[in-house]
């Protein structure tokens, strides 16, 4: 709307906004529009209940720049989508999914497409509203009762008084000569305020200010440090109704959550009354033979080799000579308190009873910890079988090999 208003001669109360002519059909409107256009007017418009085809040329309306805005919006969406996906998944937080490259363009195309369309559509709608200067709460035409039919079945021409070529008498004559049903003066709207009422503005401002509080709190919480546990709006499974090990439990007399074994009982499978198998002892002395339940065969040896590789090699080395990684590291530190692990193939251990070796593995010796808790008894025996084989292999002669094996060495 133009602010510069020309004084109207007719109405004393409100200045004249323009002249309104009403028509019954689109064809009449078209003819009238051509006349007004040819009259050299600039600030004028037609109002119709539906888009009348051909009115643009009848009015001399230039084509809108909206398509270019939309193209720009679409390209922006495309760039933002590709750029953000590249940055988020390829740079800022790369993680591997099903062997796909961190930045996989084919997998980014769907989102890129969607955002292109989204940005373009938003530009189309809001660009159209902005170019049309909508929303527009009040207009002088709203005061004209007959103008209510502009969204129903009538067609109107409005020539504004702000137009340089506007002359109330001449313009009225021009409009009346176009077969208008009526030509009426439209006064400016002096009642409706040009701006929003102050009260509404204040309320909106206060609401806007309040709406930033959650964001400010979130931003603060992301940076601040606090000794208190975090808030759990939804606790998920962070808190469960159960007693954890080593915690206090007032239900029991001893106030411990862990319960000791009931005296005089043995858990199923925990009897271990076979001293040969579980302690390596026969009649109080270290056994010199393997327990009968351990099969002395290749499979047991292979199993022992595997377990040896897992539990023993870090200190005792690959072939049991006491040169494992831990030893190498400790020696290189040269701190003087290190007791080197035994060379398992030395003579002392070659003659040591298997029961004693079993006892050492189970309970440890010197600075070697006991492995009884970690390695089942059967596996310990299998390891001993493998250790015996290692001992045998040291200092073995060619004659110990079979004919075939000897042949394979050639």
């Amino acid at each position, binding site marked *: 709307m133009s602010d510069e208003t020309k004084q109207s001669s007719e109405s004393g109360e409100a200045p004249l906004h323009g002249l309104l002519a009403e028509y019954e059909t*689109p064809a009449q409107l078209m003819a009238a529009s051509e006349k007004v256009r040819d009259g050299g007017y600039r600030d004028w*418009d037609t*109002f*119709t*209940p*539906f*888009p*009348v*085809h051909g*009115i*643009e040329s009848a*009015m001399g*309306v230039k084509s*809108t720049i*909206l*398509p270019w805005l*939309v193209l720009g919006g679409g390209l922006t969406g495309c760039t933002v989508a590709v750029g*953000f996906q590249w940055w*988020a*998944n390829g740079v*800022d*937080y790369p*993680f591997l*999914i099903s062997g*796909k490259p961190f930045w*996989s363009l084919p*997998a*980014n195309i*769907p*989102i890129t*497409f*969607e*955002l292109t*369309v*989204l940005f*373009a*559509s*938003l530009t*189309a*709608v809001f660009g*159209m*509203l902005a*170019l*049309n200067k*909508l*929303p527009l709460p009040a*207009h002088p*035409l*709203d005061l004209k009762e007959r*103008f*209510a*039919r*502009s*969204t*129903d*079945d009538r067609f109107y021409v409005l020539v504004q008084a702000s137009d340089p070529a506007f002359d109330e008498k001449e313009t009225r004559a021009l409009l009346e000569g176009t077969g208008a049903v009526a030509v009426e003066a439209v006064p400016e709207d002096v009642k409706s305020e040009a701006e929003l009422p102050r009260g509404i503005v204040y309320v909106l401002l206060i609401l806007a200010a309040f709406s930033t509080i959650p964001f400010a709190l979130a931003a603060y919480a*992301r940076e601040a440090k606090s000794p208190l546990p975090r808030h759990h*709006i*939804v606790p*998920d499974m962070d808190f469960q109704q159960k007693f954890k090990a080593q915690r206090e439990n007032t239900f029991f007399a001893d106030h411990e959550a862990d319960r000791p074994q009931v005296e005089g009982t043995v858990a199923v499978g925990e009897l271990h009354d076979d001293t040969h198998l579980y302690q390596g002892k026969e009649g109080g002395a270290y056994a010199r033979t393997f327990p009968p339940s351990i099969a002395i065969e290749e499979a047991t040896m292979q199993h022992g080799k595997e377990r040896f590789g897992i539990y023993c090699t870090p200190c005792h080395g690959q072939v049991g000579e006491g040169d494992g990684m831990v030893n190498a590291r400790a020696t290189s530190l040269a701190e003087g308190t290190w007791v080197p692990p035994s060379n398992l193939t030395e003579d002392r251990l070659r003659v040591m009873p298997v029961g004693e070796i079993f006892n050492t593995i189970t309970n440890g010796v010197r600075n070697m910890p006991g492995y009884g808790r970690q390695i089942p008894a059967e596996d310990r025996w299998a390891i001993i079988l493998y250790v015996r084989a290692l001992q045998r292999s040291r200092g073995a002669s060619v004659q110990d090999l079979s004919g075939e094996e000897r042949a394979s060495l050639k």
Partner: protein
Amino acid sequence: MAAADYDSWYKAPKGDNDLARLTDTVLRVSEAPTPPVGWYVAFALAVSMLAMLGISIGWLFWTGIGVWGNMHPVVWAWDITNFVFWVGIGHAGTLISAILFLLRQPWRTAINRAAEAMTIFAVMCALIFPGIHIGRPWLPYWMLPIPNQMNMWPQFRSPLDWDVFAVSTYFTVSLLFWYVGLIPDIASLRDRATTTVRRFVYGIFAMGWRGSSRQWHRYERAYLILAALSTPLVLSVHSVVSFDFATSQLPGWHTTIFPPYFVAGAIFSGFAMVVTLLVPARQFFGLKNIIEMHHLEAMNKVILATGTMVGYAYAMEFFIAWYSGDQYEGFLFQNRAFGPYAWAYWAMISCNVIFPQLYWFKGIRTSLWAMMIINVLVNVGMWFERFVIIVTSLHRDFVPASWGYYTPTKWDFLTFTGSFGLFFTLFLLFCRYLPMVAVAEVKAQHAHSHAGH
């Protein structure tokens, strides 16, 4: 209002010319002091179903996903079936608005408004299901690219995240498209309003639209651009939904025809739903002269065409499953057609491929009862299609030891039927308070056809 008053209200539109009578025919529906009695009955029914949805979701949130029948190996079941079903239905509106607009099909103006509204409501129903099936429904924002407490970004290479973008973009653009189309009609309602409240509320939403030709010019261009953008968008949405399945390696899901096949199926079910809704709506609200029989017939022809396309896709899947020589593919399709879910498979085939073939006959195409029955069957069939795709592909996977049979629980039923409550509630409110037909467009068409261009 007594029945007689009611009849007279609806029968004779006011106005001394065609344009005025057109405006009155459509807009008086939302201006009537009270809606028809049938509306109240339908609304009461819809709201009670909506309450059922609320209870089901409440119980789900309180208890957990275990209330549903989903159980290994069928980890996606009715939840995703319902999601795809509703998204599919939500395709017709924007399609009618956009593609038919670009193809200049004059019959679209009678139905596009209601179809667009239906789209928006269907997409809302669809969005519920992925939202509630994630187990921790208070964390869906993890799928969006906003900073979260884990300092992690979403996995943009995942089809499930594409879905988030596709469906939310689709919802936004459909809403804008619908709203832009509504602006001139809301302005009409504002100008006809007799009470301050109506004038104020409609006035807010009309945004000061007064029908200026300079504004119409940009408005029409914006509408055309939105149509051009929505057309590939509507195709992309169901394609992306199909990617949820087709990017996997699961037989029955991994097949290249899925994107266009899903799109055809979506149009198929969406059009069927539009006809199902419009047939009663035009009877109740006296819109028979605007939503004419040949409009419905044209819709039914599209249903026939897309149903046949879906049949083509079924055939190609079957043929290629055999042709590929892949034993898992071969087994899957055999299992679909003759396995424990054969009943679902044949329900799908008969509803989607066989019954729509009746539309070859003009008599059936133009019979209100026949089209109501067939189109409801089409939607039943399309629900079964998604069920078949999801459940039969999952229930017998590569390891026979983990095979299983999926059975829904009562909460599955209640949630699904409840989603219809949401849909119908919104649709009935729309019928009551907003113009069901795009009046301005119908008037434009009327004027042009009578003015001889």
